[in-house]
């Protein structure tokens, strides 16, 4: 029983991870750990995130922009993870985001962004070693403006993600996780009927957004309600163009970033907290953001509530 509770508490941590991608890059990094809620158990998490940059890569040129100053994206995201079986979890989330620039004249944008749903399945689990197949999809929750970058809260793609994750956890609690994903992204519609992309002028409101991929490595310690982790992530698009000289970003850009970060969680009982910080080491067509997030986790049994106690 104790083991089962611990496992569930760990699974709660998945919630916070969802926010990192939204604020640091255009493609979502979603549930990416090897931790599961057990059957009949769910976890509700609410996180606040803050991500800001005052330098960005215009193509490969790292620059500042006095007419943006510091660009900040903040968000609040409720997320629910549900244990269907001990090897199969379902996760859903929706962030509310708002952007602002400290200088210049660009108008803030705010609103609910994309609803995402995930299925996480553990198909190998032996001697601390496990393999997981994760599938996810996201849909814009409303028609927010997608091409007023960098102020837009998202880019209106429908996405589908396939992810493979491998993990090894030693009995001391030390673990190593590696994952890789491919993200299919739908074409989008913008409000204009002409735009430039890839050195061409298009005469339509439809825009092809490149697909994306990512890879991540995590090393950490996880035992008895305590988790501490360091990670590296790399994400990029499968094609796409670059921001033109002194122009604004556009959804067709090949946004690339390499991120380093730390994550920690403390959840002695049903209620827990977690925190995450990350920094973009290198990139293209993205801001060099520093981001952090804080979350509150609440875990509960949704069937047979009393039996666990």
């Amino acid at each position, binding site marked *: 029983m104790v083991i089962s509770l611990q496992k569930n508490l760990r699974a709660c941590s998945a919630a916070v991870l969802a926010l990192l991608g939204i604020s640091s890059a255009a493609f979502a990094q979603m549930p990416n750990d090897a931790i599961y809620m057990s059957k009949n158990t769910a976890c509700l998490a609410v996180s606040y995130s803050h991500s800001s940059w005052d330098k960005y890569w215009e193509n490969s040129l790292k620059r500042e922009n006095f007419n943006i100053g510091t660009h900040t994206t903040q968000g609040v995201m409720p997320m629910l993870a549900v244990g269907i079986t001990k090897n199969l979890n379902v996760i859903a989330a929706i962030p509310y985001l708002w952007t602002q620039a400290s200088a210049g004249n660009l108008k803030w944008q705010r609103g609910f962004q994309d609803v995402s749903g995930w*299925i996480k399945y553990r198909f190998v689990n032996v001697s601390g070693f496990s393999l997981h197949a994760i599938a996810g999809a996201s849909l814009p929750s409303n028609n927010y403006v997608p091409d007023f970058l960098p102020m837009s809260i998202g880019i209106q793609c429908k996405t589908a993600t396939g992810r493979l994750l491998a993990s090894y956890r030693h009995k001391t609690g030390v673990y190593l996780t590696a994952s890789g994903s491919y993200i299919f992204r739908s074409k989008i519609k913008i409000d204009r009927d002409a735009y430039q992309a890839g050195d061409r002028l298009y005469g339509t409101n439809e825009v092809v957004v490149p697909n994306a991929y990512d890879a991540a490595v995590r090393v950490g310690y996880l035992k008895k309600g305590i988790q501490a982790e360091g990670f590296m992530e790399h994400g990029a698009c499968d094609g796409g163009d670059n921001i033109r000289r002194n122009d604004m970003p556009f959804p067709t850009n090949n946004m690339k970033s390499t991120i380093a970060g730390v994550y920690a969680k403390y959840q002695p009982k049903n209620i827990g907290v977690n925190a995450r910080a990350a920094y973009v080491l290198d990139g293209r067509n993205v801001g060099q953001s520093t981001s952090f997030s804080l979350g509150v986790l609440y875990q509960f049994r949704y069937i047979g509530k009393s039996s666990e106690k």
Partner: protein
Amino acid sequence: MKTKHIFSLKGTTATTVILATLMMVFSCSKTVNDPVASINIPSSLDENAGNWKPYVLAATSEIPVAEPNAATSAEYKAEIQKLKDVTSKITAQQREQVNYWGAGAVFRWNEIGRELAARYNTPPASDKDGKYPLPDAANPLADPKFPFANPPYTARALAYLSVAQYDALITAWNYKFKYNRKAPSKTDQSVLTLLPVTDLPSYPSEDAVVAEASVIILKAMFPGEVPFLEQKLAEHKNSRLWAGMNVESDISAGAELGKAVGAKVMARAKTDGMGTANNQAKTAEMIANARTIGTTEPWVSQEVPARPPMLPTYGGVLPWNFDRPTIVTLRPEAPPALGSAEFQKNMDELLNIAKNQTREQARIASFWSDGVGSYTPPGHWHRRGANLCHDNSFSEVRTARTLALLGTAIQDAGICCWDTKYYYYYPRPNQMSRKVKTSVGLPNFPSYTSGHSMFSGAGAEVLAHIFPSEAEKLNAMAAEASLSRIYGLIHYRFDCETGLATGHKVGNYAVQRAKTDGAE
């Protein structure tokens, strides 16, 4: 501990099915619905176009075109034979190019002009010393690229492009009907053609005329694009041979004529005052004058570092449809005094939109934004005009006339608007309240009157005259374009309403010309 399973077939299958489905949903049809223009079949030959009124040339006979060899001559027969050799060997790629240019010579070169405008429409970045380096025509591909194809620049480039095409085509029409050389396939029915053949005489080739005249203008306006333009030029001229539409002497006579007209039109461009349209030294005097006529807080750049205002003396460029003294008579009355009740009412509207911009307002603002990286409002209206000509199966010469009327009216509107802007030197709403931020990007020049509104009023006025059945729609579009600048939070309502009305007035000068140019 429970037994651990090593591999679950059921789960893997489920995951595979999900992934496969997702791939099918998202990998299909990752192409956009970019419109493809069909081959144009002119509904009229416009036989009298040789008598239409030119813009720059004194007459359609000003530039001589030699009489071609007779259809019965050995030289012409040899040309026909050569043409047959060419058409018998064309490739799939050549056929594609034939179809591309078959949409219309003026139509395509206007489209190319707009594409170049978009490609060059980025403001220079500030350097380490907080200065904005000037684009250098002698070094067009350096940073910053030359030109910065902003709205006044693009308005002028497209006006010259259309005028050169028009003057060249009415001259070509003059000689076409003077010499009356039939199309190759009408002389020899065994010539294979890939495009519809009309009774339009083929000498000199209207395609070659348009291509050469266009390239002369576009090379001057976009000097970094010479190789691209040369390639398009060769492709266009060759496409007429591949299609079996013209023999080589049709093409070469057209090419010579196009070049000659292009040079005449460029001579006007060199002396129209554009060379001194960026006279920053004049601004101190302009600001002082604006203060004396009631602009208590003149416009200042809202960029960091402050950027010199865009083309402060563009109001002195030579207009097309009226003379320079008329510019002042078209200057609207002063905007409301800053701080007056009228001003405050307009400002309050913007403060309210700043807080509560609706999605529909954001859509309209974005649709008409035509900002950095776009072909600008003049390009937007040229596109409407070119599409209307194409949809109505206009001949080459009538398409050129329409776009010349449109292009000159739009540049005239730009000239009048810039004159007004720097006369009143009126501050943008964003300067008067930091709460007003834009959803489209803030232009770097004074507020009154709105450039979009002027361009759109003039554009709609001309197109509504040419396409009366579309008048209501066109006027509604112009009104929406005008409103879009309020919704985008960069103009007061009075900037837009006065600008739109003045734009219509400016456009009317081109309409008056249209009524007397011999084409109606």
